[in-house]
């Protein structure tokens, strides 16, 4: 595992798109062990080569455990009782029979979800949005105008958050739809739309003028100061993702009693 080095230095496309076939495979599994092994494997790679702080890793592990518990029970309750009628009743809650088969189905769903989450985090936590855009323009030949415009738009998000907070305060002191309840809440939210959009459109127009004034779109290509390489080590990483997933499947099959 140490041979991997720093996951952040690999090509973003490999990290973000490489796990996709594994995700597709995980979705098709029905057992618990295969996705569990994939989830553990992905978490191990993240822990060893992801250069994340211990707090982040602890939060991920804790979040995954909590998600598993919550989903096991909630999906377990949603399972069609007819399908698991031949399994043991573990408890009766308010007229509902909790059967072991239902919980097993819930657990499998939960573990699949956690595995998908881990595979997404693998790329998500080790890649910046700007690097994904750079790799998409350099390797996938996405027009840079699309990619960089999307990046500029992403920068609006915190501004909108702040603006929404101010509008909310403004409407509250003016007494718009005071009170509680879902209908009132919807009316209240609807009132934020016009000022937020008006501000957003104006801001977008200004940013686009500033970008034009700075040569954005002058030529079909632009200098990429940061070259995102796609080398042999990226191919190795890609193949190891797939090999690792295959190993998980084989191991799960070996460990499962026939």
């Amino acid at each position: 595992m140490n041979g991997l080095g720093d996951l952040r230095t690999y090509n973003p496309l490999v990290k973000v798109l490489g796990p996709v076939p594994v995700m597709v495979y995980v979705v098709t599994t029905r057992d618990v062990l295969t996705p569990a092994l994939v989830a553990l494997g992905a978490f191990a790679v993240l822990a060893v080569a992801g250069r994340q702080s211990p707090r982040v890793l602890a939060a991920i592990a804790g979040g995954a455990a909590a998600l598993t518990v919550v989903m096991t029970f909630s999906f377990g309750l949603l399972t069609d009782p007819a399908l698991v009628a031949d399994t043991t009743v573990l408890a009766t809650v308010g007229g509902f029979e909790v059967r072991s088969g239902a919980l097993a189905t819930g657990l499998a769903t939960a573990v699949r979800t956690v595995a998908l989450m881990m595979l997404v985090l693998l790329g998500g936590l080790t890649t910046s949005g700007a690097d994904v855009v750079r790799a998409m323009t350099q390797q996938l030949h996405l027009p840079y105008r699309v990619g960089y415009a999307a990046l500029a738009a992403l920068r609006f998000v915190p501004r909108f958050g702040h603006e929404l907070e101010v509008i909310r305060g403004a409407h509250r002191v003016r007494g718009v739809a005071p009170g509680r309840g879902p209908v009132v809440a919807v009316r209240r939210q609807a009132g934020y739309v016009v000022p937020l959009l008006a501000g957003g459109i104006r801001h977008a127009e200004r940013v686009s003028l500033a970008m034009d004034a700075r040569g954005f779109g002058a030529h079909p290509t632009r200098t990429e100061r940061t070259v995102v390489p796609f080398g042999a080590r990226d191919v190795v990483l890609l193949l190891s993702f797939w090999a690792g997933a295959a190993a998980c499947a084989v191991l799960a099959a070996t460990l499962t009693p026939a």
Partner: protein
Amino acid sequence: MRFAYPDPVTSPLLELRGLRVRHHLPLDDGGHRLGDPAPDGVDLAVRPGEVVLLLGPSGCGKSTLALATNGLVPHVVDADVTGTLTAGGHDVAATRPPLLAADVAMVFQDPDAQVVTGSVLDEVCFAPENLRRPPAEVLARAEGALRQVGLWERRGDDPALLSGGGRQRLALACALAVGARLLVLDEPTANLDPDGVEQFYATLRSVTASGERGVLLVEHDLDAAVEAADRVVVLDAAGRVATSGPVREVLAGRAEELAELGVWLPTTTLAALRLRAAGVPIDPLPLTPAELTGALDAVSLPAPVAVQEPDVPPVDRRDVVVSVDHLTVRRGGRTVLDDVSLDVARGDLLALVGANGAGKTTLAQLVAGVLRPRRRAVAGSVRVGGLDPWRADVRDLTAAVGFVFQNPEHQFVTGRVDDELAHGLRLRGVPDGEVVARVDDVLDRFGLGALRDRHPFWLSGGQKRRLSVGTAIVCRPDVLVLDEPTYGQDRERAVELLDLLTTLHDDGTTVVVVSHDMQLVAEHATRVVALAGGRVVADGSPAVLLRDDAVLAAAGLRTPPLARATGALRDPAWHAVTRLADLPAARLPAVHLAGADA
């Protein structure tokens, strides 16, 4: 391509001949009609080494002209343009704006709206990269530009972490990095605090010192801009050139004429005009505080108008409307307000001043109940008109305090101007007949009667501002709180608004206004409270506080221009003069032009 460069040293970087722009105003059917021409038939040139200041009243087309210099008007902003425009040897009409980035660089008013990337270094590299310069050259240019504006050490930071002044210097660095010899600056300091303005102009001076670049500067704050500019072009309200020439010749030589046009003059020039009318022989007119000091020391001065030191009993004896008691507020691990205690008495016009980030807005929002802090994040208390603004019912709160937001659009909640005014009254259950009477009264007083059935969002900037003040006072609150009402507004609107506040104050409304425009504060406030780092660092009358250089500098502020001039005078009787109204003369009718946007 053939470029006509007869003489690369002195041939203009920008040349306009008969420029006339008519904006396309959208119609409901998808078509458009043409707006009035502005600018209209303007000739203008910017040569290397020159800073050309473009002045004119609201609506004369200054910003439009700036946007036309690299073709954003009409290539991006739809308009009919006639006349010829040449920038860096290119015919602008025939060139797409991005292709002109190497010749014309722009700095806009809003520092937030020109940041495109996630780091200071990427930001500066953005334009050279777009122009396909090789990576090594991009980096070398970026480093040179960032060092010149003093931001090289912060190259790894997110631009959002810079102060407003820092972001405008970053915008200058972006202009330098792309190597453009013409800089077009459209009100670059309108959103900055005094410290940021000073930083920006210091950087601009170093940028133009080499003499190879030229600058077209649109700016309302003449107190800051006048020392940076070489030449002035003045447009009249119809967008035609009214006069042009060297700065001193135009601003000092034709000051009366400019004031009549509705063009703002440096505060010290206005002061000298006023004194001249009162019989003090000042010639030539000064443009800076130092020049005014020199001119006044050279003549025998009459006694100033008795400066009215506010004759007020101690606060605790008077009728206290707002009471802030040992207020400490934390947000995101940072202490935003630190043990603030403050009483506002009935009849005060209190200015809350301080640099960006000093906690002024937070304090104002807490007083008005706009912010309701979580119990854990706050210590101390606030009372306004006898209520706790964080827990009071909105209906009671609107009778105690009215709040005017920086952006008026934030507080509009209905689809008609008159409904907007009636909203607060109906909420409080005021009888219909009285609602109609009070709404009509406010519409009348604020000059909005003819617009009563319009949607508030379709009003002009100045009208929106008046309506937002109207919605706040229609419920007759004990205190009116305004959050930077002049931020990002041009000078005429700012003065119009402060005149309106003074009228309200004269009628007995208590006013708290958050601002960092020191001269406006000096002219209108009866009391000034300065915040720095969340603490109250000074509290007193403007006549005393606004000439205390040390306190103001510590708060990231600057002495307003008139106080700077009088403070250095030999005659100590004049040291307390901080307001134009303190000068011995009748008020100039042409100086305060209101309603220019109507």
